[in-house]
């Protein structure tokens, strides 16, 4: 379009009154000139004028046509089409409502899932170039779970690896805070130099650690996580510089991290790591979470190869069990959301089906409507409306419907995402990204327009070509649209039913797996059982003191009315561990490990005798722990059924001996032979759908750990039971903070929460799709028998 044309069009749009006046003047001039000519031919002026007007033809009509021909008509037309469309839709409230609802539902569901996928998978992490930050893991070939790194290995990697600008690590810890409201346990992570810099996120308030603070005596400073700052300090802007009594010593708060910085979570505290004397030699304790930012130009693969090469060097320099474990790297984004990715993509697929059903449904409705309007279009065509004109008006109508559907859908998606954010299970990564933002809106609009406009326009095109003359000739109201409409509709209904069935089958499969998981024998009781966990290390320095503390608490609890069982353990089923968990063990009578291979790693748990009845773990053979199993006496152990089956198949396990590998941290069992005195039932410890691993139980008196989870089985409300346990603990030591508390039903429910959520969503989609399919089928029947209303 030339500039002049554009100028003219703009003028026509904006200066309409002026142009109209010009036209009027021009037409008036024409009439006058014609009149003058006729007068010159001898007519009376009045007569001449009348003749001139007659000669001119319809003044109004031509004036309008001239105005029309200005080239901006399309815009004005469109606006009028929209208004007409709105009126036409209002006249058919049933159709309009059903389409809006259907589209709203479909678009809402899909936009919500899209929002989740977009926020969690597609939106980049709030760290600059997050995919250049790698997490580093060591792999025990015997288990599929990647292991954290050992201190010595990390230190050597840091010294030798060239692929990273910064290689840093964090270590799980915990600090007891004597706050104004009482003792509070703060999950803490000790971080090496360069930790915050590796992620590239500056602090929100204050600063992060200086290098000199990683030395003994200078390290009593902390940085707060964002959510912790909000929850415990009411987001006070003056928190920097405040002094907290942590682990009995004053610590200064030097900074607060911004929202979104969640390594590993935003509800923790970070403190500077100070290297302990034994760590540079420790190559068998895996507890360092290692992060590194790649040097520019280096690929993740190269870094991984380099680390493996260094590991091989180290294996030659320091041969030990596990020296040959391969090293792997995982980019940060994958590490953060990896687990949720599969579920999200599954949901995305399901939503696609739902959308297809919704589209087919809307198409069916549109078909029915189009069939009913054939006569209307035929009449309009005969009156002179061009096919393009009719098409445009239809388009406008459909766009209105699409916009309405998109609006409804977006509102629904927004609600759904807000709810998801509020009810998200803890540990779900990137929950703050679950929001309905511009991306979601665009998605809703596009999907809605495609669904409504595509399905609305096609039947009209087909209809017009076939039926224009025939409809007019028929007259009356006999407009069923003929065979093609009916066939189209039944095809659509069939498609919808098929798609919904697929969804239903998918949901059904998930139900089956879900049910099978829940119905497996867990090995422990959940009803009426609660657990309260403390970390008594710092409060009872000697093993004797810790043993006495635990014994006292369990005895007092057992003596209370309404309590049917009380015990202590170092790890609770379905909860992440709070104490050391695995150690290599030499098993009497079992074939020794092949040369170069290390002895098997076995799960061990410290427990008191009362634990087994409290948790409902049945005794199969022999005996449980008894008071004479003391620190100085014969060292004993109780094993699980699967342990006995695995290592002593067909033999009597009682009387056999186990020896654990040496302790590296002082918290693992010492290397003395222990006699098996009893066998108990298996417990699904890690997850309900995972088979029970062979386990060994050691009496607390012989391995007095400070990781104490008091398990109580009793009557009454769980909250009540928890309170009573807390009271007994605080009777003995009022300054001991409660690390965590939970009820077994909560833990069981929590372990299947994700599956249940997924199931609910999929099931919901399937039912919705099926409902729509049926409604669609019913609507078609309804429409074809009661044509007048359509």
């Amino acid at each position: 379009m030339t500039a002049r044309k554009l100028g003219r069009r703009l003028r026509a749009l904006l200066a309409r009154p002026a142009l109209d006046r010009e036209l009027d003047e021009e037409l008036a001039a024409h009439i006058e000139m014609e009149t003058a000519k006729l007068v010159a031919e001898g007519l009376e002026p009045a007569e001449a004028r009348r003749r001139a007007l007659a000669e001119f033809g319809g003044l109004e009509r031509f004036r309008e046509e001239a105005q029309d021909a200005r080239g901006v008509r399309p815009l004005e037309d469109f606006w009028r089409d929209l208004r007409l469309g709105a009126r036409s839709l209002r006249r058919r409230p049933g159709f309009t409502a059903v389409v809006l609802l259907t589209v709203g539902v479909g678009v809402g569901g899909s936009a919500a899932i899209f929002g989740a996928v977009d926020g969690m998978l597609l939106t980049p992490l709030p760290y600059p170039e997050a995919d250049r930050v790698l997490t580093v893991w060591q792999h025990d070939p015997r288990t599929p779970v990647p292991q954290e790194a050992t201190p010595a290995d990390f230190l050597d990697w840091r010294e030798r690896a060239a692929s990273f600008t910064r290689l840093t690590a964090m270590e799980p810890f915990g600090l007891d805070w004597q706050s104004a409201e009482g003792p509070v346990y703060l999950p803490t992570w000790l971080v090496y130099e360069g930790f915050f810099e590796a992620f590239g996120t500056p602090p929100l308030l204050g600063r992060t650690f200086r290098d000199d603070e990683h030395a003994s005596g200078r390290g009593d400073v902390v940085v707060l996580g964002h959510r912790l700052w909000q929850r415990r300090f009411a987001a006070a802007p003056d928190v920097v510089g405040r002094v907290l009594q942590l682990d009995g010593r004053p610590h200064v708060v030097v900074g607060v991290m911004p929202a979104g910085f969640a390594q590993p979570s935003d509800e923790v505290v970070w403190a500077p790591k100070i290297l302990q004397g034994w760590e540079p030699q420790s190559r068998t304790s895996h507890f360092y979470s290692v992060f590194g930012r790649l040097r520019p130009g280096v690929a993740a693969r190269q870094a991984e190869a380099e680390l493996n090469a260094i590991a091989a060097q180290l294996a030659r320099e320091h041969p030990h069990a596990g020296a040959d474990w391969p090293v792997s790297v995982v980019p940060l984004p994958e590490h953060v959301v990896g687990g949720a990715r599969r579920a999200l993509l599954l949901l995305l697929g399901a939503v696609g089906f739902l959308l297809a059903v919704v589209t087919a449904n809307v198409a069916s409705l549109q078909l029915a409507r189009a069939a009913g309007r054939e006569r209307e279009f035929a009449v309009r065509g005969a009156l002179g409306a061009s096919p393009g004109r009719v098409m445009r008006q239809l388009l406008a109508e459909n766009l209105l419907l699409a916009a309405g559907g998109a609006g409804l859908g977006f509102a629904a998606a927004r609600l759904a995402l807000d709810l998801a954010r509020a009810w998200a299970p803890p540990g779900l990564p990137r929950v703050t990204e679950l929001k309905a933002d511009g991306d979601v809106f665009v998605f809703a609009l596009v999907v809605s327009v495609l669904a409504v406009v595509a399905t609305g326009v096609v039947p009209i095109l087909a209809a017009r070509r076939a039926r224009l003359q025939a409809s007019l000739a028929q007259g009356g109201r006999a407009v069923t649209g003929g065979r093609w409409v009916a066939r189209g509709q039944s095809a659509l209904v069939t498609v919808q039913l098929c798609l919904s069935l697929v969804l239903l089958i998918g949901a059904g499969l998930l139900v089956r797996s879900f049910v099978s998981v829940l119905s497996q024998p867990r090995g422990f009781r959940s009803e009426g059982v609660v657990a309260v966990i403390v970390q008594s290390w710092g409060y009872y320095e000697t093993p004797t003191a810790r043993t006495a503390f635990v014994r006292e608490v369990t005895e007092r609890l057992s003596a209370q009315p309404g309590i049917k069982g009380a015990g202590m353990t170092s790890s609770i089923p379905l909860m992440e561990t709070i104490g050391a968990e695995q150690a290599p063990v030499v098993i009497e009578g079992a074939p020794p490990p092949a040369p170069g291979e290390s002895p098997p790693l076995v799960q061990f748990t410290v427990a008191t005798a009362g634990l087994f009845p409290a948790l409902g773990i049945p005794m199969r053979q022999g005996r449980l722990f008894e008071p004479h199993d003391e620190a100085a006496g014969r060292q004993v152990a109780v094993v699980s059924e699967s342990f006995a089956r695995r290592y002593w198949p067909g033999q009597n396990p009682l009387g056999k001996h186990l020896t654990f590998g040496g302790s590296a941290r002082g918290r693992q069992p010492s290397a003395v032979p222990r006699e098996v005195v009893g066998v108990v039932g298996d417990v699904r410890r890690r997850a309900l759908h995972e088979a029970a691993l062979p386990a060994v139980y050691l009496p607390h008196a012989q391995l007095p750990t400070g990781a104490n989870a008091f398990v109580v089985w009793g009557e009454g409300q769980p909250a009540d039971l928890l309170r009573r346990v807390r009271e007994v603990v605080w009777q003995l030591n009022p300054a001991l903070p409660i690390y965590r508390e939970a009820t077994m039903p909560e833990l069981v429910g929590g372990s299947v929460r994700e599956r249940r959520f997924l199931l609910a969503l999929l099931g919901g989609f399937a039912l919705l799709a099926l409902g729509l399919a049926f409604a669609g089928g019913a609507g078609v029947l309804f429409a074809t028998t009661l044509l007048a209303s359509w």
Partner: protein
Amino acid sequence: MTAAARTDRLQGNLDLLILRALVREPKHGWAIAQRLETLSHSVLQVGQGSIYPALRRLEDEGWIDAEWGISEAGRRARFYRLTPAGRRQLERERALWEEFVAAVGRVLQQA
């Protein structure tokens, strides 16, 4: 022939004739109408006013330009003239029309 097609054909003719009428010199609307009456009796059957929509359309296409001026009688009038693009269009249309006439002629002769 449906009403729509007939109007199209007439419009085509009208546009062509208007361009033809402006070949020599610019004219205002009334003068164009007078010239058209001479050239073809039927084209303005609907009424003289029918040239005004056509004029606007041709103007929008860029084939004619308009300017206000003074008529012979001293009256203010809007004058139209052919643009170079309009001249080219005229040539194209003329060629098409002559082809059409020739084709029809052949058909009629054979019949």
